[in-house]
Structures are given as structure tokens and as C-alpha cells.
């Protein structure tokens, strides 16, 4: 699996017309290019996983798709038409729902109020509280979460429960595409399982799912298509058939860089156990970035500095 730039692969296994297509999309904030030349295709009934380390541009990508930011290069097509969203509301209106990392829940508001926030069901001018509570309860039960008192503020729920409220909400309202921003990052094993099952369920219901994560194991469990971002660029774009979990993990962990790192760290003898003894204050020297560690963790930069 070689590193691929700006070239789309894996589109051979088409299940239908793409619902969302990003073509060479980029975003710059002033002189900072947060995202460059990103090509992503989202089909309904498929899970597209976007992986990347912190700062890789995942958040920027989500913000573009969900309408929080406009893009500055390339084109984004929804249903084949070039689209620019003026607000998250506009993105929602055509069927793109987003579950953010911070969940976008107001902590002091009741569970049902949060669930229907900006999508309130009304009976004349007034809220149809009964219907909203019923639907909210049903949708949460489907997620395997039972909250008997939906009037509780969301802030009183556990992290997993909050995640479920946010995902259930997005799926309930996101008719066509749902973006999940690191839904499993803050969860325990069991709660992550519930979330992953729900992703599969959303896929089977015919939604296009964009699953943002930095956990290749979670991604490989449910993903049809994988995109790895690094420093604002796509470094891998492959269909499930084309790679194994090991390759994905390798790519995600930095691939080549990991090899280099492991080579560098070999000298420190990771298995070694040192005899316990008292260490005085300041007795452990900071790693010497210019020497030490057989070339140092920072060897690359050091070398280039020498060259210049």
C-alpha cells in the first residue's frame, strides 16, 4: 500500500451514485493551509472512515462538510451538484447531520430538549412536548440506553449516555449523511461497541456514514472505505478489499516513521528493568536532542539542519 496523493482509488466497487463528493477540496486560514487537495467520496449504505492523528485536518474537514466553514479550494458536490453551505442549518436541511467530538449538547438543558434542539416538533405555535419525549425515549432505547427521566439535564448523564443522545439525535434527523467525529474516543470498551453497532445500523438503513477516528481497530470493524489524513493532505485512500488491518494500523501509526522510530529506540533497550534506587531532584537529565538516542528522536531535523 503505497502512499497516494490526490489520486482516487477504490472507486471500482461502486454501490451507487455518491451522495457526497469532495473534489480537491482545500481550506486555508490566512496563510495556514489546514487542508489541501482532499478527495473523498461518500456513498449511501457505506461507512467511510477518515483517520488521522491530532492536527491532521480531520476537524477542518468535518467543519467544511457540516457547514460551519466554507472551503477555499476545489468543489464539494452533494447529489452531483456543487454545494456551499452558508450555515450548519443549511447542511442539516439537505440531510447532513453531525455528531461533534464535544457532542454539541447544552449541559443544563433537559435530555429531550437537547435531542430536538433546532428540530423541535410543534403543535401550532407550541412545542409538542409529549411527542418529543416519546420519540426521544424510543430512539434512546434503540441505542440501548434507558433514561427514565428525560427532564434531567444532559450534564447529569455519563459520557457514554451523552454520546448516545448525540448520535441518536444525528441519526434520527440526518436523513442521508451522518458525520461522527471521534464518537468512540472518550468511551469505554462496551460503550464503544454500542456505538460501532449503531454505525452499522445506520449503514444498513442506507445512510452515508462518515466515521472520523484515530483508532484503526474501530475503523476496520465497520469501515467500507478508508482515508488517512496527514498534515492536511490525504496520504491513503483505499477500499476495504485493498488493505488489511495491519496495513491500516501501520499507515495510521505513521508507517515509515514508525519504522524509523523503532530503529532509533532500539538502542534504549525497551525490555530492560533498572534496579530501584533513590533519585535526587533533577538527577534525570533531559534527553539530549542533538546527540543521544543513537541519532536522536529528532534525527531528521538535525540532519537537515546540518545540510543547510
Amino acid at each position, binding site marked *: 500500500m503505497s502512499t497516494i496523493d490526490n489520486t482516487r482509488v477504490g472507486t471500482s466497487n461502486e454501490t451507487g451514485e455518491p451522495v457526497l463528493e469532495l473534489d480537491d477540496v482545500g481550506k486555508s486560514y490566512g496563510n495556514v493551509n489546514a487542508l489541501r487537495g482532499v478527495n473523498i467520496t461518500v456513498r449511501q449504505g457505506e461507512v467511510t472512515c477518515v483517520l488521522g492523528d491530532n492536527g491532521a485536518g480531520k476537524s477542518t474537514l468535518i467543519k467544511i462538510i457540516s457547514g*460551519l466553514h466554507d472551503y477555499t479550494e476545489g468543489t464539494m458536490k452533494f447529489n452531483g451538484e456543487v454545494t456551499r453551505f452558508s450555515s450548519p*442549518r443549511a447542511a442539516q436541511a439537505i440531510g447532513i447531520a453531525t455528531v461533534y467530538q464535544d457532542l*454539541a449538547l*447544552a*449541559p*443544563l*438543558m433537559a435530555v429531550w430538549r437537547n435531542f430536538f*434542539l433546532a428540530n423541535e416538533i410543534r403543535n401550532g405555535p407550541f*412545542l409538542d412536548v409529549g411527542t418529543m419525549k416519546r420519540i426521544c425515549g424510543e430512539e434512546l432505547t434503540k441505542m440501548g440506553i434507558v433514561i427514565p427521566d428525560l427532564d434531567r439535564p444532559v450534564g*447529569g448523564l455519563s459520557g457514554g449516555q451523552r454520546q448516545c443522545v448525540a448520535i441518536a439525535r444525528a441519526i434520527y434527523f440526518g436523513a442521508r449523511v451522518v458525520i461522527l467525529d471521534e464518537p468512540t474516543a472518550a468511551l469505554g470498551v462496551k460503550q464503544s461497541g454500542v456505538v460501532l453497532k449503531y454505525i452499522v445500523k445506520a449503514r444498513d438503513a442506507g445512510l452515508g456514514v462518515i466515521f472520523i477516528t484515530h483508532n484503526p481497530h474501530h475503523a476496520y470493524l465497520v469501515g467500507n472505505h478508508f482515508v488517512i489524513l496527514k498534515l492536511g493532505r490525504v496520504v491513503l485512500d483505499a477500499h476495504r478489499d485493498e488493505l488489511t488491518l495491519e496495513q491500516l494500523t501501520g499507515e495510521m501509526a505513521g508507517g515509515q516513521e514508525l519504522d524509523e522510530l523503532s530503529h532509533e529506540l532500539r538502542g534504549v533497550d525497551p525490555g530492560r528493568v533498572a534496579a530501584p534506587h533513590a533519585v535526587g531532584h533533577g538527577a534525570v537529565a533531559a534527553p539530549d536532542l542533538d546527540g543521544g538516542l543513537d541519532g536522536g528522536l529528532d534525527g531528521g531535523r538535525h540532519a537537515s539542519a546540518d545540510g543547510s
Partner: protein
Amino acid sequence: MATLTTTPADDRVVTRSAAASILGRPEVGALIGALAVAVLFFAVAPAFRSAGNIGTILYGSSTIGIMAVAVALLMIGGEFDLSAGVAVTTSGLTAALTTWYFSINVWLGVLIALLVSLAIGAFNGWLLHVTGLPSFLVTLGTFFVLQGVNLAVTRIVAGGVSSNSINDIDGFDSAQAVFASSFSIGPVTINITVVYWVILTIVGSLLLLRTRYGNWILSAGGDAAAARAVGVPVTVTKIALFMGVGFCAWLLGMHQLFNYNNVQSGQGVGNEFIYIIAAVIGGCLLTGGYGSVVGASIGALIFGMTQLGITYAGWNPDWFKAFLGIMLILATLVNLYVKRKADAR
């Protein structure tokens, strides 16, 4: 894989008891405080017990309550308005000065005052949006600007510190009937402001708890970024809240104008804190996202009772402000205590 296995019901979150649910309401602390104040003055002030004074107490409360309702909604929406006190005076002055200066029908002046008041509110909201400054600073600026404009324009137009009398201009009597009349129910004389106060409280409470817009207010104050992310038009919501304060300032300003026939240009300074205190006593969090309109009105009632109760009890009215400060701290502590107790259950 596709079918979701049923997870056993999570028994950690249980239904709260009815008592805890009621105690968890934001206005409970204010209600307890109101009862305490009522009992206190009932005991020490014989005049407090006379039915005839109920109207006076309610009137005093209503002049605070009308503004407290709008200010509470704004605070639940996460913002302050320090210009609310002088904005009342600005509205009254606008109507009085335009009517007198252009010799137009009083109702036209009233309409102009409404537009000016709504514009001040919209300006506050807009400035907040474009500058991104805290509303405390933005409205502090508006507060000083309005205070200065009130004094300066009144001096230019009317040549003094109060607006000229307008009771001989067309439309004064009908406007007075609308904004500053009163009627009797048995021995109790009810000022029309009390009616407006009650209506505003009901409308405000329904708006907050039973409409889509109320949900937006709660979310805009609770977590503006989250609200924006799911599609709540936060900016519009907040501008509308500031305009709501403008509307209530207009209503109260009109009452003061038609009640006294003129407006003192230096009035209103300091009242903004009284409105905020009423809202806080009523259970509004200073940080936004939580509170009650009914609570704010109860807070206003506490003010009205205290103001007159001190006089009726024969105490020196100089103590009023000191008493208010103590009330504020006590009410906030009670709110906090009740909320913790209820949440813990």
C-alpha cells in the same frame, strides 16, 4: 452485527421523586424567599396587612417585574443588559420630546419611542455579535451613551433636566388610559402595569418553556457553540432577546411618561441592577442557560414587598438597599442549596 443486542436497562439513573422534581425548579428559592418576606412584614407592619395596600405593593412590583421578565429571558440566553435601566428613561424621553418638539399626536411619539427602544436593543445585540465582546462591556458602553444622550438631548430640546409637559397634546388621554390607568377590584386598586406584568410573565414563561424559540434561548445561553453547531440561529436569538428588553423598556417608559406627564432625564440609573437582581433571585444563573421567568417575577414581588414593607413597618427607608443586598445573597444561597439538594436526589 446489524441487530442491536438489548443492553440491560441502566439502573443508575432513576426517576426523581415528585418532591425533588418540584424542588429542582429554578423558581423555588424565590418562592421561599417571597413567603419569608411576606411573613416578616405581615408580622411587623400592620399596614402590610390591609387589603388596600395590596394594590400599592403589586404596583411597585410591576414596575420592576415588567423589566425583570425581559432581563431574565436575556440572562437565560446568556447575556446581560446594563443599559436596561436608562433605556426606560430614553424611551419615555423620546416619546415626550418628539411629541412636544414636533407637536405631533402623542401616539406618533409613542410609536417613535417604540422604534427607538427596539433599535437600541437590536444595536446592543448586533454590536455584541460583530465585536464578540462580552455583553457586560458592550451594554456598559450603551449605558453611558444613553445616560449622556438623555441628559444632553433633553437640555437641548426642552432646556432643562426634564421633558416638557405634554398633557395638552392630542392623544394624551387615550395614551394615559392605555399606559397609566388603574381600576378597582373590591378594596384593591390595580394599576394597569400589574396587568401588563402578569401578561408578560405568562407570555415570557410560555415562550421559554413551550416554544421552539424558548429552546433556542436555553441553548444559546447554555452552550452557544453547541447550539450553533446543531443549527440554532444563535445571533438572531440573542438580538431578539435584546429587542425584547427594548420592548419592555418602552412599555415601562410609556407608563412613567403618562403617569407623571413628564420624564426626568437623569432617571433610571442603577435600576438595571435591580432587574438583574430580581432575575437572579428568581433562579437565573449568571452564566446563562438556566432560569425562570416566573421566578424573576417573584423576585420583583420580593422587591415590591420589601420596598413598601420597610416603610409600613416604620423603619428608616435608608435601610432598603442594605436589605436588598442581604436578600440577594440569601436568595442566591438558597437557590444553590435547593438546586444541589434536588439534583443529588
